[in-house]
């Protein structure tokens, strides 16, 4: 699991590459925690290279959303593959998240 970051104005883009499973999701959760603590409230998680997600990975996404809500932050998931999207769908997470097909429309969705 590789995690990299880039910033577009006040939007932080978290780029995930690899598998988000029981072993790796802890690390991501800690990192996102720090990012929010640092005052980044507009987040994009770039998922085009995310090829695997287990329930612990899903939990990280859910926790991020839960943390941002009281702070009036926003989260957009971008470029997710159909396979990963299917897992979100099975989990019933789809109504909770904002999805964008590509980075540009993702950036545009922030107001």
């Amino acid at each position: 699991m590789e995690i990299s970051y880039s910033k577009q104005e006040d939007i932080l883009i978290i780029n995930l590459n690899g598998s988000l499973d029981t072993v790796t999701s802890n690390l991501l959760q800690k990192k996102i925690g720090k990012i929010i603590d640092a005052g980044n409230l507009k987040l994009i998680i770039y998922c085009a290279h995310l090829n695997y997600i287990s329930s612990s990975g899903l939990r990280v996404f859910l926790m991020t959303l839960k943390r941002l809500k009281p702070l009036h932050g926003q989260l957009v998931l971008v470029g997710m593959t159909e396979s990963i999207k299917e897992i979100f769908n099975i989990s019933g997470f789809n109504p909770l998240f904002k999805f964008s097909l590509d980075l540009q429309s993702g950036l545009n969705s922030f107001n």
Partner: protein
Amino acid sequence: MAKIKQSKLFKKTLLIIIALFALISVVTCFFSGTILYKYLTDEYISKGTTIAQTISNTAVDIILNQDHSTVQATIDQFLEIDGVSYLYVIDANNEILSHTFSPYIPNRLINKIQIESTIIKKQKSTQVAIRRIDNTIDIEHPILLGKIGYVHVGMNLSIIIEQIKKEILKLIGIIFIIFLMSVYIAFILIKQISKPLIDLTSYSKLLANHDFEKPLGFQDKLASTIKNQNDEIGTLAGAFIKLELTLIDYIKNLKETTKINQKIQSELNIAHAIQMSMLPTASLPELKNNDYAFASFIKPAKEVGGDFYDYYFDKENEKFHFILGDVAGKGVPAALFMAITLTLIRTANKTESSPSKILNFANKLVCENNESTLFVTAYYGVLDIKTNKLTYVLAGHNPPYHITKNDVIPLALTDGMVLGIDETFKYSEKTIQLLDDSQVFIFTDGVTEAHNKNRKLYGEEKLESNLKKLASKLPKTLIDTIYNSVEKFAEGRSQFDDITMISLKKIDPLNKFRTIKFDLTNDKKEITKLQQKSELFFEKNRISNRQSMKYIIVLEEIVSNIILYGFTETTATPKISIKLSFKNKKIETWVTDNSHYFNPFKDFDIEDINVPLDEKNIGGLGIHLVKTIMDHYDYSYLNEKNIIYISKTI
């Protein structure tokens, strides 16, 4: 003596004698009693009549002269005569003139004579009337034709009856003496008859429990006595003695024959072991490594047989030789010839490498040593591991079957002569390409010519149809199933011919990954190993990424659940075993662990995916994924192990 008294024969005879004598006694007594009674009664009557007549004759004048005392004196003197009970004289008016009763004639008697009694006899000429009153016979004789009166003489029958009783007693006494004598005579006779019978009976009883090893010693006794008796019993005794002696002889012979048979049998058993030890049993790792499976089977009809198979792996040339042969005939001669042929073939393939050349060489040697003109049919096949090509020769052998996924086809003949007949014969060979999942099945005619009690053959048709059904099986399973089918068909009839089968299968390398197994410990990092192992499994089975990802997620959820919640510190050696299988588009998994009883499907409720974000309990999410993605999931606790089963058809 006691024996004779108890002898049933004697008892029967005694009973018959008693019955017979009882009958004779009754009949004799009845007849003699009746006759005697009649005779004595007649005597009495005649005697009484004479007395009455005498009195009446004498009484005429006396009565006319009214001389009653004379009448009285006359009748008194008759009273002294034996049997005379009473006398009296009456006149025409029934007035009693005189009588012998004292003091007077009982009225009862007169009443009886005149009113009650009937005349049993009346002589018309003399008008004599005879009556029976109780034990008395009353004879009424008229005086002057009854004009003057009647004389009555009473004769006492008791005396007669007494007399008869005495006579009958005498008679019975005599009969009884004769009876006793008869019993005694019967006893003596029966003793003579039944003595040998009793001896014979005990002899036959002893015979029944006899082991017939040596004579009972009883017949000496019999021989001297009964056997020489010139009657049926003597003949019977003779027959018994002969029977015993014959049986002793027979048993002796039987024991000797059995001993010889046992010796032959044990030698044959050794021969069987020697013959079987000549056949290879080595495992073939080289074949396995190259995705081939091979199996062999042999079952001689007798202890030793003429069938054989052989195989070996030529490492240098990467070639696998596998041979099957059938010597004409059965039993020891065929077995010896089989040993020669097998040895010669083994000699031949040391110097030659192609099946035709090997058989040319072996055939020449077999012919040279074949004085008994036996012959062998054989199959010789060589598989080139590098090219998957099978080159074979059929020397008069029935064609093996090439079993593919869709068909069962006999291999083409190579027009080869049987071994051992023509030493100059040159064999030719044929080659086929073995494809994945195809199999070559070689057999002897013991398979197809197995027959049932109706003499119906198992036949090639049945064999082909069974092979078709078994196309997907490995050689060992295929051969075992065919043998069971043949055995079932024969319905317990003893095997007619040697049965030998060998089979070689080219395995689809993919099939090797149809099932995998691996173990994990209770470390979270083991999840990575789980992913790698299962990824390889899905890849080898050509299952799409999309399908495999979902399946791996499920596996991770289950295993991480066990690692996080199942084990406690007290578990000695935590172990999670995974078995993955892919068959008929169905992926199945068994996850077994030795943690405490832990049913994840029960301990977490189904996630309600519709609750709002704030109330979302994410604990059961993983199990929710398992339940949603899988077609089936199941939990069981067996032998202190948790077993989770999941399956999905793709």
